[in-house]
């Protein structure tokens, strides 16, 4: 009977997975059409907009390459096929291929976003649990304050405060950038934490954390507030307390009840809220990268938009939207795994 249940669960999971893949394709299609339209609406000749020094021979070559004399639908097909192929053109400003640049910036943003997510969930958990156990008093209010803080303080201002306090007054942290250039730079995946561990150099690892510290703390307040809010809502549910009382009666000790059973129940909610708002986290990452000069996709895209660097915009924006969607789908699937009664996020009530 258990085997049948497992099989049923697997089947449901596969259906969900297929559904997510279908949605991903849909997102790819819609996003690419929207971006293609936006890029084509830019006033000005599309060729000279993509070239630094538009001299006649180059103009002809690029026109042919982009197929600008062909009907729009062909241009669109050309755009998505070269995107899928990985042929993303050249950046207007630096002249490097967009692919090379993105492979440098992408891991940086991911490292920042996931580190902030990790820290944020921890902080949110800590805050919610503290507010729960200390029913009143300093801890309780601090925890609730954290919730308010994460949603109301503008990240770009907070970033400056962090820089002034952490870098200028205390001198503990650098005020921007990602790598200490006086140390050799670990190569590899682009995720400095793993690369420096792989090479086995603790000074590089330490330096990585030092540079990560301020931006991550700044960005983590948002997921912390989200997690804290969701957990507070769940803690207000009397059914949870009934369960806790039952487990207590069963003889389990406090920490086991809260940290294992309750947390497992709530994990679906946490994953869902964090996953659904990953898009907003990416938005926050864009602002954080601007303030801390973090060399990531966010800053890269903002500069591309401000400088009308069309190849970068076309491919970079599409990539990051796909990433956002991929993360949300994964979070949904994970939540589904831990609690199949959780409905699809676009139907959910929270």
């Amino acid at each position, binding site marked *: 009977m258990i085997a049948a249940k497992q099989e049923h669960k697997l089947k449901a999971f596969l259906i969900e997975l297929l559904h997510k893949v279908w949605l991903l394709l849909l997102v790819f299609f819609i996003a690419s059409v929207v971006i293609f339209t936006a890029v084509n609406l830019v006033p000005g000749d599309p060729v000279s907009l993509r070239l630094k020094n538009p001299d006649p021979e180059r103009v002809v070559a690029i026109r042919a390459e982009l197929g600008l004399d062909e009907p729009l639908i062909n241009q669109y097909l050309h755009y998505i096929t070269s995107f899928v192929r990985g042929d993303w053109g050249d950046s207007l400003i630096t002249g490097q291929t967009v692919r090379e640049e993105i492979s440098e910036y992408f891991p940086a943003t991911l490292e920042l976003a996931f580190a902030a997510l990790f820290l944020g969930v921890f902080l949110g958990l800590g805050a919610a649990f503290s507010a729960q156990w200390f029913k009143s008093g300093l801890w309780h209010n601090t925890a609730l304050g954290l919730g308010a803080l994460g949603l109301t303080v503008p990240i770009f201002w907070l970033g400056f405060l962090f820089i002034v306090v952490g870098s200028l007054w205390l001198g503990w942290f650098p005020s921007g950038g990602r790598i200490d*250039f006086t140390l050799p730079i670990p190569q590899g995946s682009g995720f400095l934490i793993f690369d420096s561990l792989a090479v086995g150099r603790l000074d590089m690892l330490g330096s990585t954390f030092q540079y990560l510290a301020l931006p991550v703390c700044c960005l983590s307040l948002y997921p912390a507030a989200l997690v804290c809010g969701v957990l507070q809502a769940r803690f207000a549910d009397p059914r949870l307390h009934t369960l806790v009382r039952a487990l207590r009666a069963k003889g389990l000790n406090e920490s086991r009840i809260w940290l294992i059973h309750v947390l497992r129940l709530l994990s679906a909610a946490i994953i869902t809220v964090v996953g659904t708002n990953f898009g907003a986290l990416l938005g926050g990452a864009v602002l954080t990268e601007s303030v801390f000069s973090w060399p990531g996709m966010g800053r890269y895209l903002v500069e591309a938009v401000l400088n009308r660097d069309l190849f970068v915009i076309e491919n970079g924006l599409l990539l990051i939207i796909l990433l956002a969607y991929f993360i949300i789908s994964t979070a949904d699937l994970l939540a589904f795994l831990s609690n199949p009664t959780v409905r699809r996020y676009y139907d959910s009530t929270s």
Partner: protein
Amino acid sequence: MNIISFLNAHLRCSPVIIAAASQIFFLTGCSRIDESDTHPNTFVFARGSDAQKLDPADIDDGESVNTLAQICEGLVRFKSGTLDIQPWLARSYTIAKDGLSYTFELREGVRFHDGTPLNAKTALFTFERQLDATHPAHFLKASFQYWKNLFQEIKTVRATGPMTIEFKLNEPNASILYSLATFPAWLISPLAFESHGEAIVRRPIGTGPYRFVDWKPNQAIILEKNQDYWGAQASFERLVLRTIPDNTVRLLELKAGKIHALDGLQPAELVELFNNNKYTIHSQPGMNVGYIAISNFAKRLRSPAIRRAIAMAIDRKAIVDLALDGFAIVAEYPIPPGFLGEPDNGPPPISHNPEAARIILNEYPDLLKRPIELHTFTAPRPYFPDPLKIASLIRNDLEKVNLKVEIITRDFKSHLVAARRGNFELALLGWSGDNGDPDNFLATFFASWAAVEDSATNISFYKNKAMDKLLITGRQQTDLKQRQKTYEQAMLIWARDLPLIPLIHTEQIVVTRSEVTGFQLQKTANLFFGPIGWQSL
């Protein structure tokens, strides 16, 4: 109370402790940043944008030039801190009497970073690839704009001996020698092209005191000491040129001791470094001019009286004080002070007189019908560290004389595109001189051959036969007194027609730690880190 309840009571705090402990992860690497280094191994310099390419023949931005300034060298160079020529990779040179032929004897024993010896054959590569459009290294993607600007007169270049090369010109041009000291004429290795092809635009091989190691785009360019340098060895094992776009962060990095020098700060941010002994502010008048161009296609602003009124309305001293914190001087002429051609008697042609401006403008009520467009850009440039503030100040000044102004802001490239077509009424732009010659400014601004749509440097599209004639004459004359007279006349024509209102000459500012020795600002705004050293305070 037994142990279990004791633990229970304390384990309540465990999630909080876990949360706090996770914070410590981020502090593992933290240490009080050491601010007193004894001769650091690596010298770190930070600037506001990254280099764009490292091909000396195909760049036009200061960051690329300053990166190559450590890696490449030219046949001649400007003596440090001046605009006088001294032989460099060429140990001597001769100029023919008719000014149509320049011969250079190359220095012995110089090698490029990849081991290629410097001789006539290898030296020719740099020039042939720019001169000859069929040369394999004459990249399609490149524009070689500077060759067209500065070296148009060169007809041929060839080797007349194993260590001798000769340039032949179509017409005499007194400034060619000076142009050969500038970056398009810096030598690069032909062997590098044979091995790497087009990749040499990102991996330059020159003869300079530092060699290229790595380029992390938008983060840093890493150079290391050239152990086989023919001249005085550099003092640092490594040189890192970092990109930190945010001015505030760059300044903080300097204070935190993570970088040793920087440039491109807005003057407002320098104010608090003035009295700090730890830092030395190097500043000197820059060889540049920031100006407002008035487009010839703007019919409303054709009248010289209106142009004069606009010029008189602008308080350029306020721009110097508020937007540049005093690190600039008011520009009276389109050429920097001290240049050949600067009239040395008589009052400056434009004075600040808003009342007079208002009176003049009262006679042109049509101007009030639509706001005047003032086009500006966002990125800081050497002549305008903060173009938005300057646009803001100008708008306010013009509003005080009853004009309405609309500021149109774009990124720098789009701004250039609009400017190069004359698609504006008023546009902010500037120019940094390359070789110390007035022709480098005046032909750029006023020559009708520089008014070609889409590549114009004469963005006012000003075309005047008399001016053209004077510019050509001045270019070909060799006698200084004659040139002075020629250019003075050009200035008179400019003052009458006012296609361009000069605003400021911005000072060049570099801030270094006070331990840095031997650093000198150059008139060309190139930064040379070969000669610098470190002396503990």
